[in-house]
């Protein structure tokens, strides 16, 4: 089952991993994004993640579903944490399983790359010198003909 969630509490990666796997799957992949102690050479003491939560949750699910669709597996689980994180804490966990390894790597990579491109989440780095800064991010892509489609949907 596809699982996608934005959470405030620490991520237990075992719980994310346990959501994937099936008797027909020969490959399981777990990716963990972790707060590291430096950024562009500057010592970092921690990180604050914020999200537009009402939008982040459905976008994360959409990304997970796209990843699943690419590989024909519904064993994709992704959890993104927000709030204050210390060095070494997990900000995102992505678990995928599939019959063959190539698909698992493909789907895992797809999820993290799409998160970086379009998940409405921001992070502020706290530096060891006491200053803090929003991390320079990526402008999310916007599809062109949204207006007509939306009109029709109303």
């Amino acid at each position, binding site marked *: 089952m596809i699982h996608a969630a934005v959470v405030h509490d620490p991520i237990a990666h075992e719980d994310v991993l346990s959501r994937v796997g099936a008797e027909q799957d020969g490959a399981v992949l777990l990716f963990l994004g972790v707060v590291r102690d430096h950024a562009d050479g500057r010592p970092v003491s921690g990180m604050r993640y914020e999200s*537009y939560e009402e939008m982040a949750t459905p976008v994360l699910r959409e990304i997970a579903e796209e990843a699943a669709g690419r590989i024909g597996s519904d064993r994709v689980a992704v959890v*993104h944490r927000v709030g204050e994180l210390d060095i070494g804490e997990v*900000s995102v966990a992505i678990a995928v399983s599939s019959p063959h390894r190539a698909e698992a790597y493909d789907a895992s990579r797809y999820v993290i790359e799409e998160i970086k491109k379009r*998940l409405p989440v*921001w992070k502020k780095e706290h530096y060891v010198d006491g200053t803090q800064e929003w991390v320079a991010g990526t402008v999310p892509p916007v599809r062109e003909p*949204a207006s007509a489609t939306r009109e029709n949907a109303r």
Partner: protein
Amino acid sequence: MSVQALFFAAYRDLLGTKGLAVDLPAGATVADLVAELRGRGAPFDALPAEPAVAVNRTYAHSSEALHAGDEVAFIPPVAGG
């Protein structure tokens, strides 16, 4: 009509507010909302001329027409993961 503008992260810090209601003429687009806000002067004029925007939690083009009650979020460059 009135729409609800939301500001996150760097935009919220810039403007000092999480969001505000904005009155717009009927038929106004995302671009019209951005122009209205930037026209207010500092600090609103520091918003980008073409920010990424989500209307009702879906990314929307600047040409998209708005409707009364829409939630229009200004999305700074994202940095998840």
